[in-house]
């Protein structure tokens, strides 16, 4: 990877520094969607925190049963994936559809890693007979993470669509809104997990 970084640094230095734009990267519609999604998760997080306030003992006890190593790997997977997507956007900005596609593929791979690790975690919980009705902590844990899980899936579907178009050479330096749109959504999925991880796995 380091070799890749070296290869890229020259090109980035040639890029014009962008002036400030009034609109965020990607289609504005996706940003409205992102805000709506953040609102959903925000409410979910707040509900978790306030419910925990009434059941501190219960939450602390069962939080201890979670697998923080898996959560670490998953966080790293998503951050890395997000980073790859950043590189994909950078690639398309210099008209490189091929590299853009490769970075997206790498990002998707990290997405798969996330899904696999998370599934193994679920497998472990379910094998112990834990479900939504076990207790309030598990209710929140399962709901929150599974809802996020679905967002990872949706984000990957979007990335696949973008990647396929990139492979077909569908974007260029002048017109790559699609890549930025998919990227913004994917970063949102990452952003949500960044808060979810400490809140559900660590804070007590």
């Amino acid at each position, binding site marked *: 990877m380091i070799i890749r970084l070296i290869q890229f*640094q020259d090109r980035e230095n040639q890029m014009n520094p962008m002036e400030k734009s009034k609109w965020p*990267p990607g289609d504005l519609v996706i940003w409205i969607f992102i805000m709506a999604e953040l609102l959903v998760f925000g409410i979910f997080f*707040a509900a978790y925190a306030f419910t925990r306030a009434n059941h501190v003992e219960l939450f602390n006890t069962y939080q201890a049963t979670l697998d*923080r190593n898996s959560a670490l790997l998953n966080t790293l997977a998503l951050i890395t994936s*997000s980073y790859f*997507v950043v590189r994909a956007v950078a690639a398309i900005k210099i008209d490189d559809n091929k590299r853009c596609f490769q970075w997206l593929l790498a990002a998707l791979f990290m997405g798969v890693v996330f899904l696999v690790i998370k599934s193994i975690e679920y497998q472990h919980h379910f094998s112990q007979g834990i479900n939504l009705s076990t207790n309030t902590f598990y209710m929140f844990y399962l709901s929150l993470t599974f809802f996020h899980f679905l967002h990872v899936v949706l984000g990957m579907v979007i990335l696949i669509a973008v990647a396929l178009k990139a492979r077909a050479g569908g974007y260029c330096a002048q017109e790559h809104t699609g890549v930025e749109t998919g990227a913004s959504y994917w970063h949102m999925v990452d952003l949500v997990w960044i808060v979810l991880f*400490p809140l559900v796995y660590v804070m007590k």
Partner: protein
Amino acid sequence: MNTMTENKYFFRPCTWIFLLLVGLTVVTWFIGMKQFSGLQISLMVLGIALLKGQLIGDYFMGLRRVSGFWRWAVAIWLLLIGSLISYAFNISA
């Protein structure tokens, strides 16, 4: 490997941010593994998460190159959930 010392732009900014995010994640994980608890620790962990979120918003989502409302959209969200969560942890501590 000479370029590494000669060129201060060896890593592009987003790569530095990425490494920073990885580092902060490991710190959070370490706190979790050591089973540290208490309000101060929790708020610190939360603070790290909010910082990470802001980094993602600024550098990955590219909001630092945006002006107006959208510049602060992610920051506002982080601030909101941050205060709600810390308030909830505060009343239960």
